[in-house]
């Protein structure tokens, strides 16, 4: 299993704990990731608001680079990158004028995009390529007793994902259950975290963060598991503002890859757990010896 890895800007910046935990977990499962050489920013939501054609051209450069560098499927862990790369692929196929623009712009720098490269999210790869059975086999320290609110956010499942349901996604639920954890019912699992509004319009953004945290707490979750660096940042970093406005709601937010690393028994220092402002302190204990040998 080989993929072109497209980290995106966040996984090198505020969301570096995501990359720190993703890489060892994938390696542990035998998934080979080759970071796309000289990748550029996907454009995210911000560029789409300035110029849609240019936003698609920027994203298309990465798709073309992936085809040139081994032509493997792209793995995009950031929900925004995942959406923009898939959106560009759709526009390339759906709108002849956009295809022409992309062809012309890529041609100016000697690149070409055929339109084929699949763009996949790690959750998709884990469930459909690796498989839950293979993941279960690697569990050394089951997350027994840990109650998790699985939070998918918006841009992973909407509007382009085909590997999970847009209204009630379950891939992460099944994944953390395979790790031994308990999933709490969390109806806000695909409600927007507010994106950049936490910074630009805090009266709206902070409230959205509060609603998500408060609901998780009310449902008895000990942590939220997330698939997106911006969701993680919003739910983790604005505690002081949430507290000032609505009262303290301390629920840690972790990447699903960090939970996998803990369950696999990977060294903690490799999982970026020290990066969170609200620390996640829960730790699993070793499984009984007979179970471990059976799994091996």
């Amino acid at each position, binding site marked *: 299993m080989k993929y072109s890895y497209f980290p995106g800007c966040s996984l090198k910046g505020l969301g570096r704990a995501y990359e720190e935990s993703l890489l060892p977990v994938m390696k542990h499962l035998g998934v080979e990731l080759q970071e796309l050489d000289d990748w550029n920013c996907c454009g995210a939501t911000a560029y789409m608001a300035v110029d849609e054609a*240019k936003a698609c*051209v*920027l994203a298309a450069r990465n798709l073309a680079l992936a085809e040139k560098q081994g032509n493997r499927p792209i793995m995009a862990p950031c929900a925004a990158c995942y959406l923009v790369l898939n959106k560009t692929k759709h526009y390339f196929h759906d709108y002849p004028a956009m295809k022409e623009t992309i062809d012309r712009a890529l041609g*100016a720098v000697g690149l070409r995009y055929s339109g084929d490269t699949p763009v996949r999210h790690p959750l998709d790869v884990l469930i459909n390529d690796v498989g839950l059975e293979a993941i279960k086999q690697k569990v050394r320290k089951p997350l027994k007793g840990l109650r998790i609110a699985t939070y998918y956010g918006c841009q992973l499942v*909407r509007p382009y994902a085909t590997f999970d349901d847009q209204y009630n996604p379950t891939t992460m639920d099944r994944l953390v259950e395979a790790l031994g954890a308990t999933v709490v019912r969390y109806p806000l699992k695909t409600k927007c975290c507010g994106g950049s509004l936490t910074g*630009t319009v805090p009266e709206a953004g902070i409230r959205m963060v509060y609603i998500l945290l408060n609901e998780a707490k009310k449902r008895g979750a000990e942590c939220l598991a997330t698939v997106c660096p911006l969701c993680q940042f919003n739910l983790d970093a604005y505690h*002081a503002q949430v507290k000032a406005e609505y009262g303290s709601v301390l629920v840690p937010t972790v990447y699903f890859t960090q939970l996998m690393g803990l369950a696999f028994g990977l060294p903690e220092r490799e999982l970026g757990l*020290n990066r969170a402002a609200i620390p996640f302190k829960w730790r699993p204990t070793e499984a009984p010896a007979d179970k471990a040998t059976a799994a091996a």
Partner: protein
Amino acid sequence: MEIQRTIKYDADRVKGFGREVMSVPGCEQLESCIQCGTCSGVCPLSIYMDYTPRQVMALTRGDFKNEVLKSHTIWLCASCYACTVECPREIRITDIMYELKQRAIHAGIYPKRFPIPVLAREFSAMVKKHGRITEMLLVMKLFLKTNPFAAMGNWRLGVDLLKTRRFSLATEKIKQRGDIARMLDATDAKK
């Protein structure tokens, strides 16, 4: 008693605006909007908007260009696509919001010092120059250009980021930066 229409109508329209938007790839379906309000119902931000998404759809289709481009609604849309997947007429409302944002930026009539369009512009300028985004630099620029006092109010956030070693101002760059500029120029070439 004389019955009068309370809403100014023809005088406020910019004839052809709705057609123009509906001719953009991805925005065609707007024509079949039934004004059911599902978009406004599922939108997590409609409670903050001056016009709800449903109203923006009606205003756009009805040629009310100025009302739509000046509205806060298009800038409050966080692109969560809830409306797009729920719309019974398969209107890509999020993409229409993007189209309206682009038109507002282009026309320069977005609310002044409203931080979201500033973020979008700073973001695109950084990508054009370096090929990548350095998140902390972007956030600092945004605060300096819009509300330096808000930046000070967020000191706690900065401290947390420093403590967890996520605060980095080292500029992320790609190797082929010239390629980005050449591609963007070529995009404009024949539009």
